[in-house]
C-alpha cells in the first residue's frame, strides 16, 4: 500500500495534524499494522518537499510544534492518478512455494508433505480471518474477505500442484 497516497487522500476532506492523520490511517487501514509516528512525519516531509502538501498552520504547545498539513492541487491530482492506475498483479507470488516443491522432488523428499503443511498453515490464517470477520463490522468483513480470497487462490494452486506432483516429478528429474 502507498502510505503517501493514503495520507494524501485522507487530507482531501480537510487539513489535519500528523497525529490526526496517523489516527485516521490506523482506524481505517491500519488494523494489524498501525503506522509509526516516524513513518507519518517522514512521509509528510517528502510530500511537503514534492509540493503535494503545504503546512497550513503551526500550533505551539508545551511539547514539540504541531504542524497542520493541507493538500495542494498537485496533491489532489496525484491521488487521482494513483486511484486511476491499476495495481500490478503479482503472478509469481508462488515462486517460493514452487521452489520448495521442486527442491523436495529433486532431493527425493515428500513434496506432498510440503504442500499439506502449507495448506494447513494457510487454513490456520483463514480460520483467524474468518473469526475476525464474524466478529467485525462491514469494513473488517471486506478487508478479511480480500485476504481470504487471496489465500483461497493460493490453496487452489496447492491443490492443483498436489494433483500434478507425479508429472512434475517426471519433468524436473528428467
Amino acid at each position, binding site marked *: 500500500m502507498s502510505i503517501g497516497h493514503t495520507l494524501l487522500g485522507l487530507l482531501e476532506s480537510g487539513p489535519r495534524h500528523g497525529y490526526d492523520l496517523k489516527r485516521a490511517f490506523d482506524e481505517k487501514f491500519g488494523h494489524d499494522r498501525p503506522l509509526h509516528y516516524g513513518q507519518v512525519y517522514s512521509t509528510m516531509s517528502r510530500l511537503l518537499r514534492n509540493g503535494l502538501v503545504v503546512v497550513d498552520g503551526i500550533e505551539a504547545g508545551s511539547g514539540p510544534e504541531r504542524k497542520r498539513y493541507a493538500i495542494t492541487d498537485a496533491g489532489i491530482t496525484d491521488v487521482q492518478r494513483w486511484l486511476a492506475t491499476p495495481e500490478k498483479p503479482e503472478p509469481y507470488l508462488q515462486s517460493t512455494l514452487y521452489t520448495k516443491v521442486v527442491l523436495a522432488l529433486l532431493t527425493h523428499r515428500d513434496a*506432498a508433505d510440503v504442500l*499439506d*503443511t502449507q*495448506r*494447513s498453515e*494457510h*487454513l490456520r490464517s*483463514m*480460520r483467524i*480471518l*474468518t473469526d475476525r470477520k*464474524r466478529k467485525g463490522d462491514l469494513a473488517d468483513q471486506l478487508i478479511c474477505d480480500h485476504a*481470504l480470497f487471496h*489465500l*483461497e487462490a493460493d*490453496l*487452489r494452486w496447492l*491443490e492443483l500442484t*498436489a*494433483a500434478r506432483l507425479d508429472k512434475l516429478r517426471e519433468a524436473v528429474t528428467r
Partner: protein
Amino acid sequence: MTPPAGSLLWAEQLRKAYGPTLALDGAEFSIHPGEVVAVMGPSGSGKSTLLHCLAGIVTPDAGTIMYGGRELSAMSDAERSALRRSEFGFVFQFGQLVPELTCVENVALPLRLNGSSRKEAERAALTWMERLEVDELRKKRPGEVSGGQGQRVAVARSLVTNPRVLFADEPTGALDSLNGERVMELLTDAARSTDAAVVLVTHEARVAAYSDREIVVRDGRSRDMERAV
C-alpha cells in the same frame, strides 16, 4: 489402538473397495463433541466414502468405527438406522427437501418419523427455523424458496433431533459466497451451541475455515493435519 479419551466418533484402518477401485485404504478419523472437523481432499480421494462409513450408511470392508463406545459394525441394520434417525443429522449439497411438504413440515419430518406428534414436531421445527432465520418460510414449499433459504431449511431439519453428530457433505456447494458463508455461520453456531460434533466434507477452503481442524484424504488415506504439525 483405542479411541482417544473423550472422542465421540473414532475410526481406524478403514478400507472400502468398489469393485477394483479402492476408495478407502487405511483411513483414520476422530472427533470430539462440539468439534467441527473438515474433511478435505481432491475429487475421488475418498472423503465422501469416509463420511458414509462414519455415518453407518456404508459398511467398510475392514477397519473399526466406534461411536459413543460402541462398534458400528457390531450393530444390526435396525440399530444403525435408529442411530441415524435419532443421533445423527445430515446435510447434503442438493435435493434434500421433500417438494410436496411445506418447509416447516420438512423440518419436522425427522421428529414425525421418530414418533412425535405433529404439533410437538412443528413447534420444535419452528424453534430451529427461527435460529436459522427461515421461520417466515414455514408455509412455503421448497420450490418457492431460494437455494440459500432451502439450504438453511435443510440445516434446521438436520438439527431438529438435536443430533450428537452432524454430517455435512459439501453443504454450501450449490450456493454463492454470501449465502454459503451465512449457512456455515448458522450451521457451526447452532452445532457448537448444542455441543454437536460436525463432520464437514468440503473441497472449499473458505468453508473449511469454519472448522476447528482439518484432515486431508488422499488416495483413500487420511492425514490429520493437527497431529502432523
